[in-house]
Every structure is written in C-alpha cells, then in structure tokens.
C-alpha cells in the first residue's frame, strides 16, 4: 500500500482518501488514481475498524452474541439484532408472540427513518451544504428520545432477545410515536425545499455514478443502492418476516441508476416507513412480549440463515451449529460490503467531487463493512 503513494508511470496522481478524511464518515481508506480531476481507479482498503466479530461470536452464547451485532451497522442496530434473534428463533422453532412481532416492526421502521435522516444530512454535507445536517438531526433526535424511553439506549438498542423483547414498551410509546409522525409530516416539505429541489444539488446528482441494473445484481448490491438501479430486492416484500406480508406498503424503485435515483429511493422510503408505522401504532395486540424460552439456548445441529432489510440493504445471518451453546461458525452478510465493491465501477471516469457524492448515496457505514 505504501509503495503506491506517488504517481504512476503514465503521470496519473495517486491520492489517499482516508483513513482520516471528512468524506468517508469513518475509517475507510480509498486509494484513488486521478488524471487531473478525473478518476481512473478507486481501490478500497478495509480493516481499520475490523474487530472480527464473527470470530468473537464463536465464543459467545446465543443470548450474548446479539449484543455484539449492534456494533456492526450502528445506525440500524435494532434491525441487526432482529436478524440475529430471528435466526436463533428459527433454529429453536420458537413462536414469537404477536405483540412482540408488531413492536419489533415498529422499532425497525423507526430505526430505518432515523438512519435515513442521518444519511440525508450527511449526504448534503458531503456535497458542501452544512445546514440540512442539523435539520435532519432535529427529527432524528425525537426518534432517539422514543428509543431511549423504551429501550434504554439511543444508538445500540439491544432491545431484542431470542423469543421476543427484553421488556414491554414504555406507556408513552404510542403517544410519542404519533407526535413524531406529526412532526415529521410537518417538516418533510422542508427537506424537499432545502435539498431535493435545489438546482445545484440536482446538477451534482443527475447522471452521476451510474450503476446499471445488471451490474447492481452482479455486484450483489441490495437495499436502496440496488433499488435505485431498478432491481426489486426488498426483503420485506419478497421474503416477508414478522408479518410484513400483512402490512400495506410499496417497495420504492427508481430506474435511473444514478446518484439522484438512489437519493430519491431513500427519501421516499422514509415516507413508506411512516406509512407502516401509522398502520401499526394503534394496532399493537395485547399479550405477552416474550415467549417462554429456556435459560440456556442450545441450537440443534444444522445451518440456519435468516435475513432482514436494514436501512442499507439485505443483512443476513448464517449460523452453523454443532449443537452446543455457542455457534460453531457465524457469518454476517453485511449490505455495505457488497455495495462498496460497486464503487470502483461507478466512479471511473467521473470527477473527484462526484466520488464524495457517490459514497454519500451508497450510505456506507464502515463498521458494517469491516465487521
């Protein structure tokens, strides 16, 4: 890596973006070959925040390992926990109570909105507009407050346990969620005025970072990144879990394949999440919030795979069990890892400033990539 610093034989400039760089939102290291301002090649170097969570999980019990997964994609930590709990439940064939399922979905969608809000602000900041970041945080804070009240934490919630939830929701939960929906709806127009409708913003996004549908599939892109290229891949629609099949919502698909399409998918997805929450918030069934489970969980010998749609795409958990109290091998299929691999293809031939916009629309969370 360090020999590469300098120039290539044909006079291209090689610069290191990262590991400490304001645009990478973490410790991602990109080695970029530049010809003037035009990008020739982008080479990601990972591992600056790799904690080998997969190895760590091999020595943690099925109750313990869920908490580690919050630290991967910390912006949708609740959804990560959800996938892991579902995988353990699949292995043990635990039937989760209806109430727990609905609350899980509600919190999933709130997490998704919170994650997209942060992305929206950070994306605008990548393009040089600072103000939207603070406006996005106004709404995000109220979600965090709801989370804090119910889960006891603002970022790494760890509210889900195999078999249901850690505790019941706070009595204020429904009221505060409804307050949030009102706040969100009153402010949503502001988002469009401030960023989506801005001429400079549209010029920076349109036709930039094109990813074709075939490439999106081949690179294993999922989530808004793939849906911006016209790939229908929403896990909630195709392989519904926890009763998503009973809820009316649309899978947001844009066919442009450029940065603007990926942007629009995320913005519209927030509205769909609001729609899901509105349907469920008054329909939380009464009953238990946790199924009866044994104190020590032992998964039967076998292999279990479960997946969910996080804010960044398809997150999969693959547990290989030997019948003990800890997993023999665990693999996390993180969406960011595959999405990042498409960056080189997208960035070639565009300007350095656009690389930042593309990284913004990929919504990279580095611990999710490095695991």
């Amino acid at each position, binding site marked *: 890596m360090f020999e590469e610093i300098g120039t290539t034989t044909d006079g291209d*400039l090689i*610069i290191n973006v990262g590991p400490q760089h304001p*645009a990478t939102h973490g410790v991602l290291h990109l080695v970029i070959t530049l010809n003037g301002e035009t990008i020739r090649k982008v080479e990601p170097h990972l591992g600056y925040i790799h904690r080998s969570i997969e190895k760590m999980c091999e020595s943690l019990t099925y109750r313990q390992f869920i908490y580690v997964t919050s630290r991967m994609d910390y912006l949708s930590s609740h959804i990560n926990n959800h996938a892991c709990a579902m995988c353990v439940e699949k292995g043990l064939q635990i039937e989760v109570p209806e109430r727990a399922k609905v609350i899980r979905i509600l919190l999933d969608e709130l997490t998704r909105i919170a994650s997209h809000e942060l992305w929206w602000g950070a994306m605008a900041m990548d393009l040089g*507009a600072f103000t939207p970041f603070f406006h996005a945080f106004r709404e995000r804070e109220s979600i965090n407050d709801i989370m804090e009240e119910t889960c006891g934490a603002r970022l790494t919630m760890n509210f889900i346990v195999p078999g249901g939830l850690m505790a019941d929701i706070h009595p204020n939960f429904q009221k505060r969620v409804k307050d949030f929906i009102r706040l969100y709806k009153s402010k949503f127009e502001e988002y469009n005025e401030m960023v989506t409708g801005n001429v400079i913003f549209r*010029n920076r996004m349109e036709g930039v970072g094109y990813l074709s549908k075939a490439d999106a599939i081949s690179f294993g892109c999922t989530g808004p990144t793939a849906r911006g290229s016209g790939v229908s891949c929403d896990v909630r629609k195709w392989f519904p879990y926890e009763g998503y099949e009973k809820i009316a919502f649309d899978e947001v698909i844009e066919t442009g394949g450029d940065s603007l399409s990926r942007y629009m998918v995320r913005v519209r997805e927030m509205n769909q999440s609001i729609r899901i929450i509105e349907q469920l918030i008054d329909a939380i069934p009464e009953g238990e919030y946790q199924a009866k489970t044994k104190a020590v969980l032992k998964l039967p010998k076998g292999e279990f795979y479960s997946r969910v749609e996080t804010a960044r795409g398809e997150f999969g958990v693959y547990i290989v069990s030997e019948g003990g109290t800890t997993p023999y091998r665990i693999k996390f299929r993180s969406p960011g890892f595959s999405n990042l691999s498409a960056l080189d293809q997208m960035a070639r031939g565009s300007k*350095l400033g656009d690389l930042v916009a593309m990284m913004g629309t990929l919504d990279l969370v580095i611990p999710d990539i490095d695991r």
Partner: protein
Amino acid sequence: MWSLANITNSIHEALNNQFSAGWALFFEMLMAGIAVISLFAILGLVLVLMERKVSAWMQIRLGPNRVGPKGMLQSFADTLKLLVKEGLTPGGADKFLFNFAPVLAIIVAMLLMAPIAFAKDFQLWNLNIGVLYVSAISSVSVISILMAGWASNNKYSLMGAMRSGAQIVSYELSAGLAILSVVVLTGSLSLNDIILSQQNGWWIFKGHLPVLIAFVLFMIAVTAETNRAPFDLAEAESELTAGFHTEYSGMKFALFFLAEYVNVFIVCCIGATLFLGGWMPFHIGNWQQFNHIMDYIPSSIWFMGKTFFLIFLIMWFRWTFPRLRIDQLLTLEWKYLLPIGMINLLVVAAMAIGGWHF
C-alpha cells in the same frame, strides 16, 4: 453633523502645526497603518462571530454562547488559541514560499483597503483609478493561494490551489465586466466620483434592469473570487480536507482565515460603493422631508450597513447551497455569466450614450 472627516481634519491640522509637512505626513501614514491593522483585527473578530451566529441561526442552533456575554468573546478566545499554537512546517515543504504565502495573502487584503471610502471624506487614498486598482490588486491574491498549495508538498493542497487558480482567473472576468458597467455609466474610475454620481439615487435603482443584472453577476463572481461556498472548491472540505491550507496551522492558518474574511469585507465594500451608493444615504426623489431625515444618519453607518448586508448575503449563500463541481463551476462562468456580462455591458453602454437612466 457628526462626521469622521472632522476628526481626521483636526488631526491633520494639529500635526501640521506641530511638525514640518514631511513629518506630519509620516505620522499620518503611521496612524493609517495602525488603523488598518486594528481594523483587520476587529473585522476578523466580528466577521467570524457573525458567520458563526448566522450559521447557527440558519441551522436552528444557538451558536457560541459561553465566552463573554452572548458568546461575543468567542472569536477572541479562538484567536488566542491560534496564537499560542505551534506553526508547523511540513518536512518536504518549500520553507520560504510556505511561510510567505499567508503573509502575501494578508498584504493583498491590506492593499485593497487603500481606495475605499468608509464615510464621507474618509478615505485613505483618493485614487483616480480606484476601480482599476482594486481589480488589479485583488487578482494577486490567487498567487498566494497557488504558492501555499504548491509549497505545502501535499496533493490535496496542490489540487485545491489548481482549482482555485482556474476559478479566480475565470470569475475575475465577470466581476470586471460587472464593475465596468457602473464605470461606463459614471464615466470615472475613481471610487469617490462613483459615489458622488449616486447622490440622486443608487445605481442599482437608477440603472434599470441592466445594472441589476450586473449586480447579480458581481455578487456571484465575488463569491467565487473569495472562495466562499458554493464556490469553495479550493477548500472543498468534504473532498480535499481543507484544500490549499491543509498543512497550515497556528497563526499561519489564522492569517489565511483572516485574509478570507477581510477579502469578503472588501468585495462587499466595493459592491456597496458601486451599486448601493457607498456612504450616500437613501434618498427618494423629491421627498424632502424623508431625505432630510435620512441625511441625519451618519455616512459611516450607511456604508457599514450596506456592506454588512452584502456580507450577510454571502454568508447566506454559504449556509444554504451545496458546492458546485469544478466543471460545472467553469461552465457556469464561461458559458453563462461571461456572455451575459458582455451583452449586459453593451446594453449599459447604449443606455449611457442614450442617457436613458435616471
């Protein structure tokens, strides 16, 4: 009426009574120098605080509010911090150019102060080619940026400097054309004459649509020339970390920072002088009563009010717009602003010949 001119005149007389003419001139120059340097310091403190307060207001937060009453001493504390910080020079840097660049930036900013009329009869140097002088000197500022970028021995700095070179050189054309349209109408390059020609109304009102267009062009061009967002490609925080001043720290960085704000102040002074009548009060046609009341407001207040209004506009741009890309930036200049500016200048010339303005 209270006026700054009375003070300067009495000082001038006192000095001439006390000393010979040569010594009096020397002392006057010394005082002017001290005045400019202290104005610099005050501007740095005020504008940084203003920027932070304006951005806080736009970003629905409070901004600095801990140091001093309402956080007013915040920028003072920042300056103190920058003063005591170590000024590092990178190992591979060209030491002379690296250390000289911020000084050059500040010298250019200082030189630009000379022909500006801050109030009625209050001007350091009543230059008969003031407009030309300002355009000529302001283009030197790009050299300091190129120097800093090249001498830093850093690729981000180099790219920032190269971008800045392309940007400033192109946008100077638009700024020049916009300034020329007022010069054509006035028939003089002296800033003082331009202000006096606006006694019966500011050019932005007298000059119909063409001068309004020239004003808009001017504002866009000077925003680009001072490297302010949305044209801050030379710094481009999210792309080039800090652009041409990536490697600077301590007081050397502070000088660049100060030069940026002083440049903003100066271009706004020029804008206020050319288009908004400088220190001329706001008059409406034959409303004698109204005009009389307006005359009571001191000319320095008028000038500063207009200047700070324009500074606020530029800050408003910065905190609302995303940044342009380098090719879009140059497209905007060469394909849109420059042709518009040229045609506009022709229209203004026709207007001036026909005497169609008020």
